[in-house]
């Protein structure tokens, strides 16, 4: 991957997020000009960047988005939720493409179709004249529509299929019998494609596995003096034996101008088209086939007078229907019915190829919301002998849509494109873009991790100096040197500490990284659930280690979803309870000494401990005795167990009973803890407490049977010495009473499979380390306590990774290895 592409990807992520944020900001304050300008700028820049690479799929979508925003900005169309939804979906698509590029440095060819669809859905929001400006979609639609309707009637071969010369036909039959799927392609380049450096003829000739092809002009050529050399009016019809994916890839720059039709082997069998059209039409079909726009007069003129009269009546009725403008909402339906009727009439009159032209006209009419294309067809068609000289209204614009002269803009657009390479204004804008950039470096995380490892080693080797000083004094008897080593050590120690702090700072990240996805999540889910929810984010600037912040994302999403789905009530229920209709979810982060505390607070219906207890009992998680015994608090804690769900119906949001279990295990994995408080009818608070950094952990060192072990300070409750006489045996277990509380005791040696008994000190007291493991307090009998140290824990690798008794290892100053016990696992 080139550095340029890397930069592009990382910027694209930023831009897409920025665009998402701005879209939502605009939803709250639709009139915010600054946000609108910023949004447009982001979209514009992103599109420009994508154009640097060969990612037409991405550029196409962004271009449509940019055009759409341009119209919003100039107040031609207004901002709506629909618009925001489509743009957000488009940005999601762009992110998917970025993911593809990251993985393979290219975009799969099959994305092209999606990209066209998304671009079309964006363009569909623009008023009709805008559609015409962008010939890319506007002009190509009819052909595409015509072919796609042809695909919908699989038994009908395209008219030009009959032109296939015998040599090509036999080759096609041979391929087809060999199991090769053939494709009929209609390629309709946009009229202005020459301006973007396209050569459709060249592209056509290079089509993979081309069997045969022909080209047709979309319109008859004007006299030479009026001919526009730079306007493409040709359509290409191709028969190819290449697989669909290869074709999609080959035509990836122009997917919107291509339509595919799988070739039915029956077409090749020499039956021609008769079977599909009926015997009467067959004779005229033979005559009609050579031309794209065949003369119809011969056929209609031959009609008997009474049929002719009926035809005229029907056609004039269609004209009237088309010109009605009483109910704009009904227009699409009317257009479709008129088109269907005209197609049938044409078929009956023996004009088979008119069907496609009508379909094309219909597609244009539907896209633009205007009846003109169909009226034009009526005018040009010789079906209608009673053409009225004057049509009362040439174009009936949809109400509320600006009626701009499309032709004028058309020309200007072409000029713009031709001139854009040396367009100085645009470059000026790009220069400004960089001006606002943050003053930060982008560094690969691996480099920071490497730095972190190095400082870890420095800390360890620095700790060797005091041992060296001791040896110098005791073994070699040079006190002077020993003192000097110690003073040097103090200096190195200070620098190393500061360095460690500085690197930790680099790894620190604001939790807003995780928080920023919630506005979108809450918006989407609450819309889906029909709930009114206000999201309040607090303490977004609170910082923690990058790994911690990142691993926070999943649990938080689960919690917020749960709150939305189960916690908050629908507006009606809330009103009935006397609460404001709009529910509130607060996500709050704050630093609490060396931990980060994240709270998700909702003001919903709370959790009913009785319901939880009953459910847990039904699922067999607790027995009857427990049902009676456990208090409300413990009952609520039961929701963290796997398999418990209080909802009857599983939705796509929640209810599978895995959510809170996932939350707890994810939080535990990063040495965090999670707790829940709930008041019935008032709301629920879920609190996650996490270490600030995973890099350095505080560890207490203990000794047992001559070996040193580390216990994370997070688990240490206290250290006590208990006289042997105070230990009470209950069956096989040792217990002791400490401050009025019965504490089970276990010997560390026996837990680790060491046979030596715990050693007592001179007063026959045993050292007991009270640890918290899995919510319970337990006493570990050890031989002695040592100091606590800040250590950089390394996970166990290779075969050792299977040892669950240890959570990791660390190097001590004298070079020895300290194993860190995993308290949850060993007890």
């Amino acid at each position, binding site marked *: 991957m080139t550095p340029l592409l890397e930069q592009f990807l990382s910027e694209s992520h930023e831009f897409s997020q920025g665009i998402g944020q701005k879209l939502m900001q605009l939803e709250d304050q639709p009139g915010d000009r600054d946000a609108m300008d910023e949004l447009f700028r982001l979209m514009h820049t992103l599109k420009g960047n994508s154009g640097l690479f060969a990612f037409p799929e991405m550029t196409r979508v962004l271009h449509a988005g940019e055009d759409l925003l341009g119209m919003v900005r100039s107040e031609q169309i207004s901002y709506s939720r629909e618009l925001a939804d489509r743009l957000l979906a488009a940005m999601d698509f762009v992110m998917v493409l970025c993911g593809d590029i990251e993985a393979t440095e290219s975009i799969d060819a099959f994305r092209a179709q999606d990209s066209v669809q998304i671009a079309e859905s964006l363009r569909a929001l623009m008023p009709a004249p805008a559609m015409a400006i962008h010939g890319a979609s506007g002009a190509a639609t009819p052909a595409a529509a015509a072919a796609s309707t042809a695909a919908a009637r699989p038994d009908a071969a395209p008219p030009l299929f009959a032109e296939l010369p015998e040599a090509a036909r036999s080759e096609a039959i041979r391929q087809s019998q060999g199991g090769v799927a053939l494709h009929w392609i209609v390629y309709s380049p946009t009229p202005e494609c*020459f301006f973007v450096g396209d050569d459709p003829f*060249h592209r056509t000739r290079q089509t993979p596995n081309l069997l045969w092809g022909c080209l047709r002009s979309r319109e008859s050529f004007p006299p030479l003096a009026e001919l526009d*050399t730079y306007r493409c009016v040709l359509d290409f019809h191709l028969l190819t034996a290449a697989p669909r994916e290869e074709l999609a890839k080959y035509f990836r720059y122009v997917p919107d101008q291509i339509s595919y039709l799988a070739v039915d082997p029956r077409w090749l069998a020499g039956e021609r088209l008769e079977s599909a059209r009926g015997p009467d039409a067959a004779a005229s079909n033979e005559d009609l086939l050579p031309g794209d726009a065949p003369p119809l007069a011969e056929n209609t003129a031959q009609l008997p007078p009474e049929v002719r009269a009926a035809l005229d009546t029907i056609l004039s009725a269609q004209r009237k229907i088309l010109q009605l403008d009483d109910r704009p909402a009904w227009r699409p339906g009317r257009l479709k019915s008129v088109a269907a009727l005209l197609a049938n009439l044409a078929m009956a009159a023996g004009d088979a190829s008119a069907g496609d032209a009508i379909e094309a006209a219909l597609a244009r009419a539907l896209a633009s919301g205007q009846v003109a294309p169909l009226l034009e067809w009526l005018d040009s068609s010789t079906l209608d002998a009673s053409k009225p000289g004057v049509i009362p209204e040439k174009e009936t614009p949809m109400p509320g849509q600006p009626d701009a002269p499309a032709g004028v803009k058309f020309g200007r657009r072409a000029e713009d494109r031709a001139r854009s390479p040396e367009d100085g204004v645009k470059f000026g804008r790009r220069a400004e873009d960089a001006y606002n950039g943050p003053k930060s470096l982008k560094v690969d995380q691996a480099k920071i991790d490497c730095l972190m490892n190095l400082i870890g080693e420095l800390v360890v080797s620095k700790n060797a100096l005091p041992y060296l000083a001791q040896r110098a004094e005791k073994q070699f008897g040079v006190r002077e040197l020993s003192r000097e080593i110690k003073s040097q050590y103090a200096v190195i120690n200070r620098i190393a500490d500061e360095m460690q702090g500085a690197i930790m700072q680099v790894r620190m990240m604001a939790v807003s990284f995780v928080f920023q996805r919630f506005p979108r999540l809450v918006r989407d889910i609450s819309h889906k659930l029909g709930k009114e929810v206000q999201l309040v984010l607090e303490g977004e600037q609170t910082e923690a280690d990058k790994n911690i912040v990142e691993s926070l994302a999943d649990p938080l999403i689960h919690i917020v979803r749960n709150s939305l789905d189960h916690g908050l009530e629908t507006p009606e229920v809330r009103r009935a309870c006397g609460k404001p209709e709009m529910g509130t979810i607060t996500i709050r982060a704050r630093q609490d000494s060396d931990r980060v505390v994240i709270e998700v607070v909702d003001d919903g219906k709370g959790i009913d401990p009785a319901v939880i207890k009953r459910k847990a009992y039904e699922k067999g998680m607790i027995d009857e005795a427990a049902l009676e015994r456990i208090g409300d608090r413990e009952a609520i804690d039961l929701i963290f167990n796997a398999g418990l769900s209080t909802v009857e119906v599983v939705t796509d949001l929640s209810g599978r009973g895995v959510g809170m279990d996932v939350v707890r295990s994810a939080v535990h994995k990063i040495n965090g803890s999670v707790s829940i408080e709930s008041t019935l009818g008032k709301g629920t608070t879920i609190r996650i407490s996490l270490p600030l950094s995973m890099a350095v952990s505080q560890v207490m060192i203990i000794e047992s049977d001559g070996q040193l072990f580390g216990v994370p300070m997070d688990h240490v409750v206290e250290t006590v010495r208990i006289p042997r006489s105070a230990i009470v045996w209950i069956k096989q277990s040792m217990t002791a009473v400490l401050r009025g509380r019965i504490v089970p005791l276990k010997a560390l040696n026996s837990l680790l499979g060491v046979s030596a008994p715990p050693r007592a000190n001179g007063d026959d007291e045993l050292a007991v380390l009270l640890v918290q493991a899995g919510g319970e307090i337990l006493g570990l009998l050890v031989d002695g306590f040592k100091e606590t140290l800040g250590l950089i824990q390394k996970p166990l690798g290779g075969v050792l990774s299977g040892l669950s008794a240890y959570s990791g290892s660390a190097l001590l100053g004298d070079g020895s290895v300290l194993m860190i016990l995993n308290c949850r696992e060993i007890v």
Partner: protein
Amino acid sequence: MPIEFKQDCALFADVVSVEEAEGLLEWLQKQPSPKVDLSACGHLHTANLQVLMAAKPEIVNWPADSALRAWLESALNLTT
């Protein structure tokens, strides 16, 4: 020059690019009975093809490249 204009005959050579189309059109308009020799032509841009289709000059030689010849024959004979 991909197109060489000799009195009433235009000789196409190699690849005839989009820039030639305008000149070709002008030349065709001036000639009372233009002829086109495509024998040395390897490819011509769509724009040129359109001009030929619209002007329908007499083709004195078809391209040596058989694939191109097939394309052009079908396209140019269609309009004559």
